[in-house]
């Protein structure tokens, strides 16, 4: 079984489903666990369901986070 993959929501559909962008083609997933999801959000997709809405920073700025740890 497979990696949770971060994908962007491009369309919200009825019955708690949505389309996510796979890099051109789209994939239909269940959003039952992330009901607040909006178009444009990135979600973590696992076995056909979104399990989290990824927060704003597309990648954490690891290096400034490191500065924080050093303090």
């Amino acid at each position, binding site marked *: *079984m*497979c*990696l949770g*993959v971060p*994908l962007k929501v491009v369309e919200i559909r009825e019955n708690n489903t949505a389309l996510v962008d*796979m*890099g*051109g*083609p*789209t*994939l*239909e997933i269940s959003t039952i666990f992330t009901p607040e999801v909006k178009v444009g959000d990135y979600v973590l*997709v696992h076995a*056909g369901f979104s399990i989290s809405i990824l927060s704003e920073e597309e990648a954490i700025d690891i290096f400034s986070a490191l500065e924080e740890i050093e303090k």
Partner: protein
Amino acid sequence: MEDIILLSHGNGGEATRKLIEEEILKYLGNEILEELLDSALIDIKGKIAFTTDSFVVSPIFFKGGDIGKLSIYGTINDLSVMGAKPLYVSVGFILEEGLSLKEFRKILESMRSAVEECGVKVVTGDTKVVEKGKGDKIYINTTGIGIIEDGISWHGRRIEEGDIIIINGEIGEHGLSIMLERLGIKTEEIESDLAPLHNLTLPLLKISNGIKFMRDPTRGGVAGVLNEIAQKYNVEIEIDEEKIPVKPWVKNASEILGIDPLYSANEGKIVIVADKKEEKKIMEFLRNHPLGQKAQIIGEIKGKGKRVYLKTKMGTKRILDPLKKDLLPRIC
């Protein structure tokens, strides 16, 4: 009542004759095939390339093609990578009782179009029918004959240290698109990369005599072909992960399914090993060709050895072994 293939269509009698004349010849007929002799008689002078392949892909219709198209292109490509101009093809059908004639005709039409596109002729064939449950709708075997073009010879083209490894475009599309479809994953716009390569390989062999090796990475993917080369020619290969062209959807699908694109089948790609001195000429040719626009140099021959190594984007190296597990079956 739907028109379907019956056991009688394979009995060699009237029903068989009708199937051949009214359906098969309608799509694939030409002056040689229409003779319907036990063997086709053809005149060829020169060095001949001869190949065969059987096609059992499921589902028989997939995004980007179908088993019919695949059966023609697949064989054409096996001839093309050897530097042979494809000339004649044979077609053997094993049909399952109950296959709808509508679907069979769709496949025949697809084959007709592929045959025309490749400039070949279907000169002989065979059709058998098996009982329901003994065959999955349709299996196709094709055999191809081509003629090695003047001036092309593999003699003396030895793979050596410093040779570069090139791929003509993005990898993994065929295998992954079929897997997505088989798992019932609803996606749109995903396609196999199915394409005939003779118009790429033959001119390429003419413009450069630094081509040492070509193969189409079907089952087993690019990793499979690279390992074949390493084993057969006793060379160590290193490829650079960052240089491997992959479409975003393939990357995502591969993570979703847990399958590395390097192991996923391709049906419109070739792996080329060439003399580094010819790099500019070859890349220029490829990048100007519709089937080579995304061509990349992905690695090189490092010297004597037997293994394939991958340099990761972290700068570390790992071994890239040939595919060992079962991916989903019947991709090709």
